[in-house]
C-alpha cells in the first residue's frame, strides 16, 4: 500500500468519500438484517415481524436515493479520476444491488401472510434455511471485503454461488414433488418457490457486489468464470413417480 497521506488538497473531499463508504456499509447492514428477518417471519408465520421488514424497505430506498444524490454531486463538483472515480461509480452500483436485495427480502416477508402455518414440518423449510444461510454468508463476506479490501477473499464467492444454485435446483424439484402429492400444497409451495428464487437472486446480487468491489480495488474485472446458471429450467418431475 503506498501510504499516500490525505492527498486531496481539499480534505472535505476525503470526508465525502468516507461518508459514502459508511453509507454503503449501513445499507449493507440493513439489507442483511432484512433478509434474515424476512425468512424467520416466513418460517414462524410471524406477521408482525413481516410487517416490520416490509416497512424497513423504505430505509433502503431512501438510502439509495441519498447515495445517488451524493455521488452525482461529487462527480460534478470534484470531477474525480482513477481510483476515486471507481470508488464513486462502485458505490452507485453497490447501492443499487443492495436496494434490490432489500426488495427481494420485502417480497419474501409479504409471502408470510399467504403461506402462514400451512407448511409445518415440511423439509423444504430446512432447504430454504440452508439457502438463506448461504446467501447471507455470501453477502456478509462480500461486504466484509468492502471493509477490509482484501480482495483475494472474493475467490470463495464463486464456490458458494454454485452451491446456492445447486440447492435452489434441488428445492425446486422437491417443491414440485409436494405439489404433485397433494393439490392443497400447491398454494404454499408456489409461494415458497418464489421465496427460493428470491434468495437465489440475493446470492446473485452479492456476486455482483463482489465484482464491483474487485473493480474498485484493483481497477480490473474479477477473473472468475461466472458460475453455471441454476438448472431448474430443465427439472421435470413425473406424476406418480416415487418421491
Amino acid at each position: 500500500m503506498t501510504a499516500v497521506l490525505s492527498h486531496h488538497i481539499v480534505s472535505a473531499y476525503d470526508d465525502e468519500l468516507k461518508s459514502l463508504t459508511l453509507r454503503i456499509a449501513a445499507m449493507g447492514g440493513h439489507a442483511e438484517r432484512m433478509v434474515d428477518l424476512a425468512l424467520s417471519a416466513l418460517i414462524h408465520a410471524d406477521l408482525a415481524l413481516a410487517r416490520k421488514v416490509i416497512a424497513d424497505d423504505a430505509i433502503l430506498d431512501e438510502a439509495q436515493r441519498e447515495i445517488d444524490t451524493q455521488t452525482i454531486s461529487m462527480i460534478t463538483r470534484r470531477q474525480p479520476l482513477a481510483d476515486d472515480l471507481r470508488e464513486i461509480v462502485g458505490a452507485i452500483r453497490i447501492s443499487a444491488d443492495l436496494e434490490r436485495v432489500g426488495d427481494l427480502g420485502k417480497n419474501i416477508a409479504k409471502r408470510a401472510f399467504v403461506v402462514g402455518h400451512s407448511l409445518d414440518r415440511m423439509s423444504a423449510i430446512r432447504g430454504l434455511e440452508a439457502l438463506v444461510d448461504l446467501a447471507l454468508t455470501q453477502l456478509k463476506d462480500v461486504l466484509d471485503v468492502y471493509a477490509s479490501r482484501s480482495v483475494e477473499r472474493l475467490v470463495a464467492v464463486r464456490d458458494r454461488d454454485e452451491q446456492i444454485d445447486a440447492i435452489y435446483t434441488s428445492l425446486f424439484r422437491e417443491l414440485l414433488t409436494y405439489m404433485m402429492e397433494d393439490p392443497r400444497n400447491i398454494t404454499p409451495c408456489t409461494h415458497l418457490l418464489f421465496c427460493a428464487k428470491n434468495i437465489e437472486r440475493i446470492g446473485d446480487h452479492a456476486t455482483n457486489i463482489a465484482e464491483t468491489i474487485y473493480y474498485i480495488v484493483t481497477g480490473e474485472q474479477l477473473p472468475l468464470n461466472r458460475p453455471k446458471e441454476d438448472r431448474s429450467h430443465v427439472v421435470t418431475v413425473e406424476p406418480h413417480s416415487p418421491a
Partner: protein
Amino acid sequence: MVRRGMAAHQQQHDVQKPAQARISVTSSDSEGKEGLRRQFSSLLKERGWLLAAAFAAMLVLHLAGGGSLLVLVAAILVFLAVAMVVPVRKAELGVAARAAPGSNSGFTAESLAAAVADPLIVFDQRGVVVLANPAALGAFGDVDPGISLPLKFRTPEMQQLIGRALETGERAVSAEYSERVPIERNYLVSCTAIGGTSLFVMVFKDQSESRRIDRMRADFIANASHELRTPLASIAGFIETLRGPAKDDAGAREQFLQIMQNQTSRMARLINDLLSLSRLEMRALRMGGAKVDLRAVIDSVVDSLQPLASDSGVDIENRIGEARMEVAGDRDELYQVFENLIENACKYGRSGGKVVISAASKKIGPAEEISVEVRDFGPGIAEEHIPRVTERFYRIDGNGSLKGTGLGLAIVKHIVTRHRGRLVISSSLGEGSAFTVHLPAE
C-alpha cells in the same frame, strides 16, 4: 480511498503509541530484541540532557581555564565511555526485572488487551481500529488495525452504537450485536472512551450461550418429537399385531420383535446424535485453541473403525503421508468429523470394497489450507441431493432408511464450519463419492 485514509490515520496515531502497535505483530524472539533496543535508546534519550550538560560544562571549563586540548579530549572520551556503560547495565537490569515473576511494571496496552478473554477493540475518533486483541481477531477475523469499524459491524444497532460513542465521548454506551452466519452468535457490546486519549474501547460480552440454550430446547423438542414419532408408531403397530392377529404365530413374533429391536436401537442412536448436535451448538466457539495433528486423529479413527470396515468387507486405505498436518481446534470434535465421514463411507460405499483417505495442502492468499478427502467407490449420490445431504434429517431415499439418523453429516458440517473450514462433496452415480474437509492450517 479507505486504505489511503487508514495509512494517514495510522501515521497520526503512531506518534502517540508507535512501538506497541508494531510489537504485537512481531514474533516473541524479535519482540525481546526489539524491546531491549527500545529500552536502551529510551534510556540514552533520558540521559541525553545529562550528557549535553556535561559536555557544555567541560567546554566552558576548557575555554575559561585554557587547559590543554589533549586533556579535554581524554576527559570527553572517558566520560562518554562511562555514560554508555551505565545505561546499558540499567537496561539489562530493566529487562531482567520485567522477566522476573511477580513484577508488575512495564505492561503494555497490547499485553493487557491480549489478557482479556472477551473480544476487545480499540478505535479512534474516526471509527478506525487501532488495536484488536486476539479474541476479537478470532471471533471476527478482519478487524486488523486500519479497518473502519462501522464498515465491519454493519447492523443498525452497531452503527448507532459507534455513532453515539463518537458523539457523546465520555459516557459508556451499549448495544446488542448478533451474527447469524457463519455461526449464530450474540454479543452485548459496550463502548467507552479511554480517558486521556481520543480513543475508545469496545468490549464484546458473549451472550450466545443463553440464546443457544433457548433455541436448543425448542429445536430439540421439535426435531425429537417429529423424528421419534415414526419409529414409535411402527412399534405401537407391531405391539398391537402381536397382541391380536399374530398372538400365536411364533414365526411372526420373532420377526416383529427383531424389527422392534431395530427401531428402538435406531431411536437410541437418534437421541444420541440429537444430543451431540445440541451440545455442539451450545458450546461457545473456541477458536485459536489447542493445536491438533490431523494425521494422528485420522490414524486413531481408522484404527477404531477397522472392525466395522472388515464386517462390511471394506478396505480402508490411508494414503496420508508423514507430513504434519496441524490445525487449531478441538481434537474431540475433529475426531467426530472423520469418524462420521469414514463410517459413512464404509456403510454407504460398501459395494465399492474400499475407502481411500488422502490429504493435501495448498496456499490460499497468505494462508495455508489443509484438505482431507474421504472417498468411497459405492453407488454415489444423485446430483440433486448433493447440496442438501448436510441438512438435518435430509434423506436421499425419502422415507428414512434404517442406516443412519440423518444427522451425521449435519454434525460434520457444523464442526467444520466452526473451525472456519468447508466441507465439499462431490459424487457421481455409479462411481462413488468424495467428502473433502478443508481446514485452515495452524
